[in-house]
């Protein structure tokens, strides 16, 4: 029984519940948002300080909930979930601080704050759940607030179809995933994730494992998102408000890869072995496809800055998929590192894109023009920083994950075709080159060139003090994780090896 | 299947009777139609509903008819009960008292709500 972990998961929920009380003013609501998410982050840091790398699952709570249904309230964290827990808590706090001054029109700011707090509970719960049904429950809790955030506060004109697409894809995805869970339970008689991971698929025939992996993998692949199931993502990102985009990219997408690492691969090893090459292939297609689309969008005057970042996410998640599909500790560590790096970098990029959009009333490249270095040098520098981090420059957070994933692909797990994976490796390498091309092209389009007149005609402000507060942690952590990757790897590696059965 | 043979035969006879009567009537009877003859037969009174006036007809017929059926059914139960009264004993008495009471509740309701008054 660990009270701290439960408090961490419940704190945002309590914050959201407080907002339901009548008589909370607009200002107070935003402060409640900051308070609740700050408390959550503090709790998460406490957990991290008390975390013992040598041991497996920690801070466990295991209470029987509805024995007839086999439901247990089982929470706990290990080295795989801890970094993601911290990342989610951090990003939500930053969003809350950002929302102190910046809530897009669309109605009640109380509802806005309450929704992203609810979303935080869902994501933290997903990362801490150790029971399949509890996992599913938290997974679902995330959907509805995100839907409302997009549908209500998104950019007018796009938000309706984008939010429908989002909820249709993800609802169907999680329904299929639930089917997979039920299948596992029907075969093994338990929903307990620790026990199932320890069994490594014992008690399930090859066919059942393949079927269950297909169902669960499909459900999670929508969330990752894996090409070709990614089409909801660019629309959702383009339409979502800044806070929504940051959480979507920084937190929600992680749930997909996390689920694959935590559930699909260890519990269904034979299924994983069957599908790993496909997973890798789709991942690599995602990498190349994402960067090609970005290149095309860059040349298109109607290309949307947020859309480009969204497609770059598809590419980054392709690396995570490739890493997982190697079924080696290196690859999976790489995937986790990609998650962290992507969360920090893409979170930063979406904040920047939001800032650009606020200043210019548009995120269309054709209307933005160039010359940001001249007009707003600090903002321009940050955009450039985010872009080079995104292309995986060594020394920044984006580098290690991609490197590890590709390293894993060079020598995949026994039973997987080495030749095939090396081909994937080569294609992924091509992808990194293309990524560099569009990221640098983006910097050229936005930042360089004659300063000229601001497109809106208004004088432009450079980075404000408030923005510094929100962005600094992201920049600092991107540097830290890039320069000292052991901070993350030392936590994840033992857990990954334990999960893979000490291989 | 021969358990059901009599039923089939009965059905056949009923069908044959209907067909034969209609066909015989059509073949042998005199054919002198007038308007009155073409109307549906209804006890020699003006057929209802009237073609004019919305086609509503007095609900009182039905009240009376239902009342009749209530007591008719009661009798249907009372006869066999009376025949077996001896062997049913106290049980029979209690059950029949309940049944009659239920019927009389319905009767009382009908009476109090004016169902027995023609106008």
């Amino acid at each position, binding site marked *: 029984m660990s009270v701290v972990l439960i408090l961490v998961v419940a704190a945002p929920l309590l914050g959201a519940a407080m907002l339901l009380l009548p008589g909370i003013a607009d200002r107070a609501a935003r402060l409640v948002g900051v308070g609740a998410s700050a408390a959550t982050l503090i709790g998460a840091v406490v957990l991290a300080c008390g975390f013992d790398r040598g041991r497996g699952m920690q801070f466990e709570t295991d209470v029987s909930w509805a024995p007839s249904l086999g439901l247990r309230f089982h929470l706990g964290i290990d080295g795989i979930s801890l970094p993601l827990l911290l990342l989610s808590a951090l990003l939500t706090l930053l969003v809350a601080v950002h929302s102190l001054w910046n809530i897009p029109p669309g109605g009640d700011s109380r509802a806005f704050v309450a929704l992203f707090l609810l979303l935080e509970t869902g994501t933290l719960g997903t990362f801490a759940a150790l029971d399949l049904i509890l996992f599913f*429950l938290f997974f679902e809790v995330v959907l509805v607030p995100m839907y409302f955030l997009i549908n209500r506060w998104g950019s007018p004109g796009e938000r309706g179809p984008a939010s429908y697409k989002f909820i249709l894809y993800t609802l169907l995805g999680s329904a299929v995933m639930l089917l997979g869970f039920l299948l596992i339970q029907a075969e093994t008689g338990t929903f307990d994730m620790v026990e199932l991971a320890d069994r490594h698929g014992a008690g399930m025939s090859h066919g059942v494992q393949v079927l269950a992996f297909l169902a669960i993998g499909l459900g999670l692949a929508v969330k990752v998102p894996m090409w070709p199931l990614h089409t909801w993502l660019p629309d959702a990102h383009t339409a979502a408000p800044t806070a929504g985009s940051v959480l979507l990219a920084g937190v929600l997408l992680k749930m997909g890869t996390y689920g694959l690492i935590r559930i699909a691969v260890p519990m269904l090893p034979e299924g994983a072995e069957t599908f790993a090459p496909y997973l890798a292939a789709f991942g690599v297609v995602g990498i190349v496809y994402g960067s090609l689309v970005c290149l095309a969008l860059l040349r298109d005057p109607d290309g949307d800055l947020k859309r480009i970042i969204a497609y770059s996410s598809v590419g980054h998640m392709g690396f995570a998929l490739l890493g997982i599909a190697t079924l080696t500790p290196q690859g999976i560590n790489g995937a986790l590192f990609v998650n962290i790096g992507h969360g920090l970098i893409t979170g930063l990029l979406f904040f920047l894109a939001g800032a650009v959009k606020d200043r210019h009333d548009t995120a269309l490249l054709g209307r933005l023009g160039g010359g940001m270095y001249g007009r707003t040098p600090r903002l321009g520098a940050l955009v450039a920083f985010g872009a080079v981090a995104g292309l995986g420059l060594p020394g920044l957070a984006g580098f290690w994950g991609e490197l590890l994933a590709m390293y894993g692909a060079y020598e995949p797990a026994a039973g997987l075709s080495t030749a095939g994976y090396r081909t994937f490796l080569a294609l992924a390498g091509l992808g990194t080159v293309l990524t560099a091309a569009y990221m640098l092209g983006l910097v050229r389009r936005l930042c360089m060139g004659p300063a000229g007149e601001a497109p809106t005609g208004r004088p432009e402000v450079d980075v404000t003090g408030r923005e510094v507060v929100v962005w600094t942690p992201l920049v600092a952590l991107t540097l830290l994780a890039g320069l000292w990757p052991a901070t993350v790897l030392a936590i994840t590696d033992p857990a990954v090896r334990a999960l893979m059965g000490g291989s | 299947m021969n358990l059901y043979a009599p039923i089939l035969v009965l059905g056949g006879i009923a069908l044959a009777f209907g067909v034969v009567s209609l066909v015989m009537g059509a073949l042998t009877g005199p054919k002198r139609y007038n308007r009155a003859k073409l109307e549906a037969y209804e006890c020699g009174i003006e057929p209802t509903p009237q073609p004019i006036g919305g086609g509503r007809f007095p609900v009182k017929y039905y009240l009376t008819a239902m009342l009749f059926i209530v007591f008719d059914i009661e009798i249907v139960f009372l006869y066999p009960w009376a025949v077996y009264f001896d062997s049913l004993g106290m049980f029979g008495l209690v059950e029949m008292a309940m049944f009659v009471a239920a019927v009389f509740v319905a009767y009382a309701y009908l009476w109090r709500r004016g169902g027995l008054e023609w106008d």
Partner: protein
Amino acid sequence: MSMSTAATATLAVTKVDAPTIEYGKLSPILIIAGVAVVGVLIEAFLPRPARYRAQLTVALVGMIAAFGAVVWLARDLPDDHRGSVTAMGAVAVDGPSLFLQGTLLLIGIASVLLIGERRLEPAGGDAFAPQAAAAPGSQQEKDAAAAGWTQTEVYPLTMFSLVGMLLFPAANDLLMMFVALEILSLPLYLLCGLARRHRLLSQEAALKYFLLGAFSSAFFLFGVAMLYGYSGSVSLDKIGVASAGAMDNDALLLIGLAMVAVGLLFKVGAVPFHSWTPDVYQGAPTPITGFMAAATKVAAFGAMMRFFYVALPGMRWDWRPVMIGVAIVTMVAGAIIAITQTDVKRLLAYSSIAHAGFILTGMIAMSDAGVSSTMFYLVAYGFVTLGAFAVVTLVRDARGEATHLSHWAGLGRRSPLVAGVFALFLLAFAGIPLTSGFSGKFAVFQAAARGGAGSLVVVGVLCSAVAAFFYVRVIVLMFFSEPKVDGPTVVVPSVMTTAAIALGVAVTVVLGILPQPVLDLADKAALFVH
């Protein structure tokens, strides 16, 4: 000589054994029947102004007493939870009977609270026609409305219907089942036609329900005759014995099975016997719709389970594929057609069709877990439905209840509490975790998966996802759309409707978060007496 012998033989009174009836074991049914009869007497002998209070009091006290009797009988069940049969084998007093009777009585109490509501109509009166016999739009009707008449026959009618419902899941022979079916249906046909507003729609609903209901009853009865022809008995136990080794000459059995199933499927509103549901739900007075949607389903599924589990377990390989097909079509059609609906009551009607499919999924599992999960689902579903229709009665404009969905736009701004409660019910319908809907769906799908009906689970889960989509759309409409200028208002009800809605909310939340006690109860009550 021989003639006279025959005549004597016919007339001779052979000794028969008097049947025995344990009245105590039938006490819940008898109490409600007594309440209904007292209700008729109240109508006959009490002056008009005194009737409303008297009817309401008698009905509520009677149902509470009957619920007490159910609890008392349940405590008397032996330790192995096997029940017994009474009334010469015609009525079973076992776990499923008592569980469902208790559920029905609680639903009945909440329904009567809704029926008794008299605060909502601006001109006074309840949801029922001041003079149902007057032609819609006639002078007579206007006079009756102007005079402020109210009728109180709805209470005995509801009680009579409840008698049938209590008997339906407990009936252990097919004739008793048919009688119960008719007792529950006939008052409902009438009640459907009594709406104060939209008289024509209401009468159309009543007529439609009556015609199709009578048609399905005929199917049921004909099926009973077939099964009697096959097994020589109407007792479910004896049919069960006879059908256990059915090999040859089972045309009668199969036809009988199919026809009885048609009658039962009609009552639960399963596709393809669902076409009455939307019209009737829309036209009937909303409190009656709530009662009918919740209680009829509970009773009819109880009867259906007993029929299939007791009378035809040996025939499962014949009926299961058909029922699986029906369940799949029901879930798919209900979920998909619901998307296109623009009227709240019709939307809820199609959602009830989809839910009939989910409940069938549990029943088809053909195991104790199937029975208990189905019963749990029925409890969860019954209270959510009742609550949802109760909320519908509150949203009104000048023409009565504003049921068109466009009128509900922005309701969350006008009345966050009512919209919030309705959103909770919608989420429960959708089966979102932490509501009773999720626990219920989870239980039936789990039972079905273990019972080897995997295809059903797949379709069920996918249909839930589709359904969730349109429920969420209604929530968005309520909370995130601009309210119409001339939109409806939310009328503040009396304590009775408030209590009914509160009960619905409480059950929805409690069964969502702490389902275990009720699941335990359902598990213990899952054994049919043979």
